[in-house]
């Protein structure tokens, strides 16, 4: 089971009310390479992978939910007291007409989240390479959002999240090494 903790992983700050940035950021909420996809991808792959890497998939999958909550917090803060006029000016008029200021699992272009964003091939190497690719794509997405953002506080939190993708990719690469390792051979060179 999972236990919720009433705190964020990282102290998220946002400096201005800016629904336009929220529109871009929702890519990492309900987009193909976003945090929801990441969490569900890793946790679902656990059931068909060697025991040696189940712990890693469980823990990274769990951390991704903490990142999902950070993204939600950023979007919440960027749009909290935004008026319908401000939402409209930010290109969120169509979002507003369906959801008011509610968050929803769709990408920056408004396409709803779908399970086809995530893969489970049942082949451990194929699945881990998928995970490595997913981490690199998430890292790149953070770069593009940072490029679009002029909010220094928001970028601080986005930099943290991008760095986490680097570490996750590292661990998945190590998981591949563990699975391809011959019995009893040392891993340190």
């Amino acid at each position: 089971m999972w236990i919720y903790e009433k705190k964020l992983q990282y102290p998220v700050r946002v400096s201005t009310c800016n629904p336009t940035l929220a529109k871009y950021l929702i890519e990492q909420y309900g987009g193909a390479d976003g945090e929801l996809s990441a969490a569900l991808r890793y946790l679902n792959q656990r059931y068909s992978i060697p025991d040696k890497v189940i712990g890693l998939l469980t823990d990274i999958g769990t951390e991704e939910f903490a990142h999902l909550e950070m993204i939600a917090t950023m979007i919440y803060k960027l749009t909290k007291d935004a008026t319908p006029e401000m939402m409209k000016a930010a290109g969120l008029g169509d979002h507003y007409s369906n959801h008011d200021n509610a968050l929803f699992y769709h990408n920056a272009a408004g396409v709803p989240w779908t399970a086809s964003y995530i893969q489970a091939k049942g082949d451990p190497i194929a699945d881990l390479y998928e995970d490595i690719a997913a981490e690199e794509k998430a890292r790149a997405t953070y770069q593009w959002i940072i490029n679009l953002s002029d909010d220094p506080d928001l970028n601080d939190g986005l930099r943290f999240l991008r760095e986490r993708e680097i570490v996750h990719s590292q661990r998945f690469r190590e998981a591949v090494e563990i699975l391809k390792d011959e019995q009893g051979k040392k891993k340190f060179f």
Partner: protein
Amino acid sequence: MFTHYKSYCPVVSPFDPCKPIPEKVYSTPPNLYIGFQPPNLPQFTPLEALKAGTLWKPFYDPYFNPFEKAKGGLPR
């Protein structure tokens, strides 16, 4: 000098309508180079680690957009 960013120069055609960007930069983060992490890599303090997004200094690779001055950042 080694960096975690590489670049290339795309072809510029005289018929390109947008103002050419002569050099395109892309990220090649530390996880591409370290291999299986060796023990006892140098660490940040807990508060520095939180700010950096990693406990280990060799993995720290902050990304700044072209408009942000790459001021600050933690010592590697």
